[in-house]
């Protein structure tokens, strides 16, 4: 039998940790984004070469010697408790080493929820009691020498249950509705002026309710971990956005010091918020690995991820919008009921968007949490903003029609260009009007015939053009950067950066590389970026809330400033680092930065594994990113299938740190918006509990044939206040507003105002 490596042709083994290689010629912002700004040559995606070779190692790609495999067993009731397990048949399967059911107290304790000051995706650890909190919850874990044996044995574990009534929809009997401002006082409702009075006297009034389904992130990489005890130390390989929380979460559950855990996560195969905290399978898995004395790999089966991972909660939004006859918005009341679990309070921030999208003087928001029997919801891409924009921007479109105004002009007339209506502080930068104008231009909006159903193709296809805008906080988190410069001769210098950050495909390695090559004059191939690895100094604070670039880059910028100073080089402007370093011993230094106004004790929070993001409100200003989307829908004359042949999106994300990956982020966000509007609806089963649509067949994601032209343009004006690099946020704002732009185009084509997602064929028949 040949050795394993014999099958690897060419260069062979996968590049580990820091596989940064670059090929191809430099690209320019202009060439990629259709943007006139051209500041420096930019790298293509620096890890693309490894990715097209299949050489990047994700969480389950490690195959250590003596590896065993784990398969979870999940509950088949909606709620209740396990009275008794029968594991006899499972244990008899050849190769089975362990059937772990209820974990005795003292061996594992539940880590607290990340939004309650903890680390975990939810504050309830399955298997530490006899509870079944929701259908699909893990109740046992089987470990065997092979995956087939573990799978077979897992199917043979049976449980006898005692069932309890459960509620899985917002309206079901047995839910519990809580006022967020009361139960989570640090998330108060947004109130400005007297919205109820101003609405009552508004000459034009709109009042409508919008329903959002549960949705699932479904990165193509499954939730997976490979864990290995080396003596008293635990090595975790798991793709995550938050190695720090994974480390502290598993240490907490096992009752060991976090110093004894290392988390290695050089690249995640997509994350989208689902991988932003300590996951529910890891504690039992680490315990199982200790019991069997071997490395164990767990790849959560796709169907189980619908209950094992967090999700976008179901929501119902009532929005009332008051305006005068010229279209000037006077008042808005935005009331949201959204799902949480029995065991956690998932804080909502829907009005963060609606309160500051326009210059509305009187505003009242109200968030209510509805407890249901599900796993705790989470931060799926643009968690609140996507669906809040669906409600708000559908209402704004309705207002435009009601008054006979052009939807673009109406939005421009209500812009809040300089001041945050909520805080009264200035916006750091806001180029929303330019996004709208440029988008209208690129789309050809002037050719739109305003009448509903007025644009038809010869074959009877209905054509609709819609517009909507979006915003997303420009958040920031604390970061530590360790910079090492090492001369490779007179012309070359290697710069190695280790920084708080995670690469989930958004392109953080490329953005970092661009910053360093632009600042220090070193070659792209001489920059090595280490992220998602707790073995260095930076604790690997979470990369979420679109703060990755605006968090890592300022810390690196500060480190580069220190390096210049230490080498006696000028503080800014072009330098020749290879020449300056030639003949010198390597230099290593570190710098750290935090969000404007963050207190110094934030470092203690980060060191303890906690989340410490800030924004959009900072002490002296508010910072947001913006986007405008223009969408064409075509609705087939007979079967009424809705297609989206073209989208134009223009984003203001501050300075563009990496044109190649930024443009791709926006395209990806638009595709997420198309999926969220026309495909993705999580179906729950009120009779049995849990999610019914628990496969990629039943929960349909957009496929290649669903996607037409997506024209992306970036304003690329550095933000002057938020940080030294001028970057804001991008990954999530790119999705915000796509849903209402599509819904508004559907209205334009058909005269149907659809207020529930996803929009289905039956809505337009």
């Amino acid at each position, binding site marked *: *039998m*040949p050795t394993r490596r*014999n*099958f*690897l*042709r*060419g260069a062979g083994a*996968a590049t580990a940790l820091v596989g940064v290689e670059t*090929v*191809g010629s430099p690209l320019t912002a202009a060439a990629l984004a259709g943007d006139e700004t051209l500041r420096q040559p930019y790298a*293509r*995606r620096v*890890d*693309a*070469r*490894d*990715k*097209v*070779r*299949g050489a*990047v190692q*994700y969480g*389950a*790609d*490690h*195959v250590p010697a003596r590896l065993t495999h784990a398969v979870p067993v999940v509950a088949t009731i909606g709620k209740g408790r396990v009275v008794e397990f*029968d594991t006899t*048949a*499972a244990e008899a*399967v050849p190769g089975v080493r362990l059937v772990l059911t209820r974990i005795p107290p003292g061996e594992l304790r539940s880590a607290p929820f990340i939004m309650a000051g903890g680390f975990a995706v939810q504050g309830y650890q399955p298997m530490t009691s006899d509870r079944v909190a929701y259908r699909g919850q893990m109740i046992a874990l089987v470990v065997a020498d*092979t*995956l*087939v044996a573990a799978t077979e044995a897992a199917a*043979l574990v*049976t449980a*006898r249950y005692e069932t309890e009534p459960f509620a899985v929809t917002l309206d079901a009997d047995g839910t519990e509705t809580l006022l967020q401002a009361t139960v989570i006082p640090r998330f108060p409702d947004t109130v400005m002026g007297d919205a109820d009075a101003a609405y009552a006297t508004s000459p034009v009034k709109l009042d409508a309710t919008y329903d959002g389904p549960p949705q699932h*992130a479904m*990165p*193509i990489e*499954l939730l997976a971990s490979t864990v290995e005890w080396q003596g008293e130390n635990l090595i975790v390989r798991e793709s995550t956005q938050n190695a720090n929380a994974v480390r502290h979460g598993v240490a907490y559950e096992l009752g060991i010091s976090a110093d004894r855990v290392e988390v290695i996560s050089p*690249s995640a*195969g*997509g994350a*989208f918020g689902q991988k932003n905290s300590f996951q529910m399978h890891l504690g039992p898995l680490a315990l199982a690995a200790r019991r069997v004395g071997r490395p164990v790999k767990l790849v959560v089966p*796709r169907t189980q991820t619908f209950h094992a991972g967090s999700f976008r909660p179901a929501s119902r939004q009532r929005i009332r919008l008051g305006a005068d006859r010229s279209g000037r918005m006077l008042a808005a009341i935005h009331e949201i009921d959204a799902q949480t679990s029995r065991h956690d309070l998932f804080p909502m921030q829907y009005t963060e968007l609606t309160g500051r999208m326009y210059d509305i003087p009187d505003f009242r928001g109200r968030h209510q949490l509805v407890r249901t029997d599900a796993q705790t919801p989470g931060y799926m891409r643009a968690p609140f903003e996507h669906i809040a924009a669906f409600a708000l921007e559908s209402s704004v479109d309705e207002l435009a029609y009601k008054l006979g105004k052009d939807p673009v002009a109406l939005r421009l007339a209500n812009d809040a260009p300089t001041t945050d209506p909520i805080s009264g502080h200035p916006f750091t930068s806001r180029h929303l009007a330019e996004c709208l104008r440029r988008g209208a231009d690129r789309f050809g909006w002037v050719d739109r015939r305003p009448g509903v159903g007025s644009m038809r193709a010869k074959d009877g296809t209905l054509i609709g053009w819609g517009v909507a805008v979006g915003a997303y906080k420009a958040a920031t988190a604390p970061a530590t950067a360790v910079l090492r410069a090492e001369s490779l001769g007179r012309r070359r210098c290697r710069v190695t950066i280790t920084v708080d950050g995670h690469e989930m*495909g958004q392109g953080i390695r490329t953005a970092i590389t661009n910053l360093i090559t632009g600042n220090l004059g070193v070659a792209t191939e001489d920059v090595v970026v280490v992220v998602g690895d707790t073995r260095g100094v930076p604790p690997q604070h979470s990369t979420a809330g679109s703060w990755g670039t605006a968090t890592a880059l300022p810390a690196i910028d500060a480190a580069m400033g220190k390096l210049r100073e230490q080498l006696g080089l000028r503080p800014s402007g072009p330098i020749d680092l290879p020449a300056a370093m030639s003949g010198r011993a390597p230099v290593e230094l570190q710098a750290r930065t935090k969000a404007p106004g963050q207190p110094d004790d934030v470092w203690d929070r980060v060191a303890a594994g906690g989340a410490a993001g800030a924004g959009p409100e900072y002490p002296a200003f508010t910072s947001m990113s913006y986007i405008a989307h223009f969408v064409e829908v075509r609705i087939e004359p007979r079967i009424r299938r809705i297609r989206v042949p073209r989208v134009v999106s223009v984003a203001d994300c501050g300075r563009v740190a990496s044109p190649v990956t930024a443009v*791709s*982020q926006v*395209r*990806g966000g638009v595709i*997420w918006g198309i999926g969220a509007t026309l495909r993705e609806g999580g179906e729950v089963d009120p009779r049995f509990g849990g999610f019914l649509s628990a*496969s*990629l*067949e039943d929960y349909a*994601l*957009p*496929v*290649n*044939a669903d*996607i037409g032209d997506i024209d992306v343009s970036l304003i690329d004006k550095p933000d002057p206040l938020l940080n030294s690099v001028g970057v804001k946020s991008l990954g999530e704002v790119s999705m915000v507003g796509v849903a209402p732009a599509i819904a508004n185009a559907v209205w334009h084509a058909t005269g149907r105002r659809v207020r529930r997602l996803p929009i289905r064929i039956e809505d337009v028949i």
Partner: protein
Amino acid sequence: MDNALPAASAPAAVDLAFTVNGSPAKVAVDPRESLLDVLRERLDLTGTKKGCDHGQCGACTVHVDGRRVVSCLTAAVQVDGRAVTTIEGVEGPDGELHPLQQAFIDHDALQCGYCTPGQVMSGLACMAEGHTRDDAEIREYMSGNLCRCGAYAGIVAAIRETARRTGH
């Protein structure tokens, strides 16, 4: 325990002989093992990814005798005597990239890279099948490969350009 299933005894192992990326492989497999799991867990060829294990995502796409298959739904015993090509076998003997791999880089046809090995294997097959007459056809024949990151435009552009340049 009313619904307990009788424990099946493990079926006898089956000796397989096939080639992977041009090299002969001999493995004794459980007849229930998928080609995907044999490649990943037994032969250390982890470039081929698991995204669903149900034939619904395409991340596990490999070639068997030159045709694309989802390896998660291919029992390993089915490839006895056949030639399997995985992403690790696409580049040249000295590590030079296949033109389609280079085009994926040039058109930024990926983000996280997790679906990418499957996209490349499907893209190669799409060209070999002659399903590259226009973008619509490429999109249709690449729709078995999900990309949650949404790198579809780059994938279509990479296949279009490579097909044109290599005469497919």
